[in-house]
């Protein structure tokens, strides 16, 4: 009986394998300008960040692959004949992971900034997308435009997404998802652009494990509370 059960499971597994697929890609985040008073970005802050991206079996993971670290530069500025020492700090996480599980509606963000780990777990945000009859080609894909407001995680940003109906994955960069096709590009206000490039499909499934780090799992509100302490 056990053997039968096992065989049955094996068969099931093999059947599932038959249409499995993996999408791998590279995501580039290009900051355009800063938020706040000084909107001109220093060269260091404007440096694009690169992520790897894997989607398989209703799960996706996005990992930072470019080497980033926070830096403090000392700059002297001259005013009224005197030299003033000023510092410019660029805070960057050395590791960022975004994880989505569509079946369980689960979203996780893990990052390490200044050698401190953070692990945030939330319900996968959903968006009220507005489809716009406008299209353009991005990296060889015909993309259609959609807009929404991102109010997840205490933000209020206007979002423009470019999705392609040619790829039947309702995922996108970071926590963005839920369009009738894969989101190739996201424009967040006019602050940054995230674009997928070098898309490669693979016949096999890729196992995506839920990521964890040294920090305990927190909800977003707990994480905020922790920050204010």
């Amino acid at each position: 009986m056990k053997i039968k059960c096992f065989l049955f499971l094996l068969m099931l597994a093999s059947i599932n394998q038959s249409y499995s697929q993996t999408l791998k890609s590279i995501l580039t985040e290009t900051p355009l300008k800063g938020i706040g008073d000084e909107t001109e970005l220093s060269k260091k802050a404007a440096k694009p960040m690169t992520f790897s991206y894997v989607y398989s079996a209703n799960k996706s993971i996005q990992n930072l692959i470019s080497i980033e670290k926070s830096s403090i530069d000392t700059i002297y500025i001259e005013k009224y004949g005197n030299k003033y020492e000023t510092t410019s700090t660029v805070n960057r996480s050395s590791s960022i992971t975004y994880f989505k599980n569509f079946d369980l509606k689960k979203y996780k963000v893990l990052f390490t900034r200044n050698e401190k780990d953070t692990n945030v777990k939330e319900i996968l945000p959903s968006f009220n997308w507005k489809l716009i009859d406008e299209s353009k080609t991005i990296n060889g894909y015909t993309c259609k435009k959609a807009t929404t407001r991102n109010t997840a995680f205490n933000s209020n940003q206007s979002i423009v997404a470019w999705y392609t109906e040619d790829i039947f994955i309702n995922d996108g960069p970071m926590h963005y998802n839920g369009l009738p096709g894969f989101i190739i590009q996201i424009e967040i206000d006019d602050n940054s652009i995230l674009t997928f490039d070098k898309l490669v499909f693979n016949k096999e499934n890729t196992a995506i494990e839920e990521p964890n780090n040294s920090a305990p799992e927190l909800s977003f509100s707990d994480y905020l509370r922790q920050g204010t302490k």
Partner: protein
Amino acid sequence: MTHFYQDISTLKKQFLCFFLLFAVPIFSQNSVTGSVLDSSNTPISQVNVQIKDSKNDKIIAFSFSDTSGNFRLELDKKGLYILKISYLGLKSFTKEIEITNNLLDVGKIILEENKIDLENVIIKNEAAGMTEIGDTLRYRIEKFLNGTEETLKDVIKKLPGLDIDSQGKIKANGKEVDKLLINGEEFFINQQKIATENITAEMIKNIELIKNYTEFKNIKKNDKSGITALNVNIKEQFKNKLTGNVSAAAGENRYKLHATLFNFSKKTLFSLISDSNNTGELSMNIEEYTKFTNQNEARTIGETTFSKNDDLPRFLTIGNNVKERSSYFTGLNLKYSPTKKTQVNFYSIFNSVDQVEQQSNTQFYASNSGVFSNKDSRFINEETMFTNSALDVAYKPNEKSLISYKGYFSGVNKINTVEIANNTNQLDNENKLTDYTINHQLNYTTLYKNNTGLNISVKQQIIKKSNRLNIESDAPFLNLNFNNSTYKILQNSQLNKNNIDLNANYTFSIKKTTNAIFMESSIRKDDYKTTEEQFTQFENNVNIENKVQTIGLQTKFKLFEKTTFSSALSYSRLQFKMDNLNKAEWLFMPTLSLKTDFNSNHYIKLSFSQNNNLTQAENLVPNNVISDYRTIFSNENLRLSTITPNNQLAADYFYFNNKRKLSIISNLSYYKATNIISNNSSADATVNYIQYAVAPFENRFQSMLYSEKTFSFLPFSLRASVSYSSSSKILFYDRLSQTFKTESTSAYLSFVSRLKKTSLQFETGVAVSRDNYQDNFFSNSILIVNPFIETSYKIASNISFNSTFSYKKITAATSSNEIYMLSPRLRLNFPKSKFEISMIAHDILNINNYEQITLTRFDNFTEERISQSLTGYYLLNIKFKL
């Protein structure tokens, strides 16, 4: 008081509730629900569900299935929509739905596995300007063009992997492209040359090469069709309106008028092309002509017509070796898709060509008494009118069945008059030919459950061909005893064919094999009649009736993981009937093939097939038939039941790598036929007798290697091809057997520039060919060396310059000839104006009449022909864009 307010507020609430109750039905949403499963009945979550507007394909609503595979979509309006369900790795499901109730449950939808080889699904090659998605390779054409391109032909020639051969045929990686599509719709059927020369470069948005194109008529979606198609997407601004151009060109004694009119919209594609010129340019080539006149589907039993080549209009075979030529052409193409279920394709063309040839010929004959020659000079005038119309209607009542009707009519009317002068005679030879073909077929295909399907078709073909030969001379000819010294021949010949075929094909799967049983029954009635006014020896009346019953089995299965084996075995029973003769014969015809796909762009295929060719009524004449003033045909020993079995063995290799920018194609084939239809000839100074005769065998070997490589470190693509073919055939001269051998080698090497920073592009290379033929009496060879350079240069934003220069050296055993050809062309665009002016100079190094020598091998003689050729010209062309 408070009580009163409370009352009011409860009243308000009640009112609200009351209105809400009403509001529900008034503003009610219409819902569509359903669930998605995979082929093993497991629910799939996160499936993309879309509802699109059936008119403009816009997404109205979308959602995703939950973990139990269920989905629900809300819509504001009732009406006709398209439901599209797609998931990565599975085949998308599309269905037309009509929402009439508040709730439409589409039930369980099973998504089938996608058969695309996913390993190469998307290869992006941004820098190269090509994107490969599944079986589609998309060219971003702007990456390859420099702005000098005028037509689709110029565009295709510059794209890597694509080319247009001298016959106007589009080739992809060295192989012919089967279908040409406009905006994804099949259009310009059998008219690749016409299409590529008339669609202007500015209309093109991008070009896609589709490897396994699924025709509208194909309802078996699991199989790879093996059809390659080139899809030309038209820019938005040229869609949904009438576009086109009119141009007029004039030069010294030359003119050319040309008009094109297009309208490409979602439901209708329309084109009208008209051309009139006396420059010698043709709108059609020999291949298109044969396709127009002979649209036979593949048959189980092959037929060889012993074509004497004079059935074809001369303007198609003679090339530029004419003194003068004027042609008029009109072509109408119409494609109408009223609904997603119906497609109607119609075209009609009319072509008339008048041409004058002037030549002096020397024919070298072999006979037992040695080699002798016959010299004559000819002045030939030919007027040809050709018309062809075809209608193709296909209707898919549902996804699983198809009804289609195809009918075409083609007619040729040709008057050929030749004035011949040789040592003894002065003759007038006139041929009047009329040829009508009507062909129609009805087809029904349906698919049942479990991959079984049925296909039934009925076809009929009617051919009526009549030829009137009139020869008048000042002296006796053809060794005939003419009465009252009027040297006149008036021969009428008539050929009627009526074929009816009934075909049924049942497909089914057993385990992992795909099988088909097919049955075909056909009746072919041929009659051939000739009469001559004076001489009874030219009277013939042949009536034959063949009945063929075929039954066969096709099987296809995977032998190994990457290797597919397919076979078709068929048995035919043939019943011949001619006069009082009745005979029956059984024939076995196997076809086997083995194909290994390393991936979708890399395969090797081996195939073997055995076939049988039958004798035609024209070959079975009991008496003689006059062909021209010195040729008489007759039949020696061909019988109705003469069957020519042949075996063909072939190997194909295909490799294409977008990343390495390399393609390699190689074909080898060997053909051997026994008991062939050949001829026995005997010639003397006045008559050449050719008798159809059975000969022991014929062999043919063909090989071809083609490669194209784009270098990453050099701005060039290299195209190279080598081909070699040889054949040997048994012929008889005066009943003595002769082995006639031919050998031909050709090589082609060219560099196509891919310069990125300049607006200069060029292609330069050399083509070399060598043909040898040999029998016991003759041996001859022709060597052609042809280096060429084609340049296109954008001088300024509105001036472009194209030029072709070639040198051709033709060396034969006894003579040699050199031809230089230079054709520059300057084009001026006026920005914001609808006019365009070009200065066309064609073959300007040969402005005066010049002569070309050709050497042609016929059945039993070799002809050296010195003919007047078309001369070069200058034209000033004004084009007005609509």
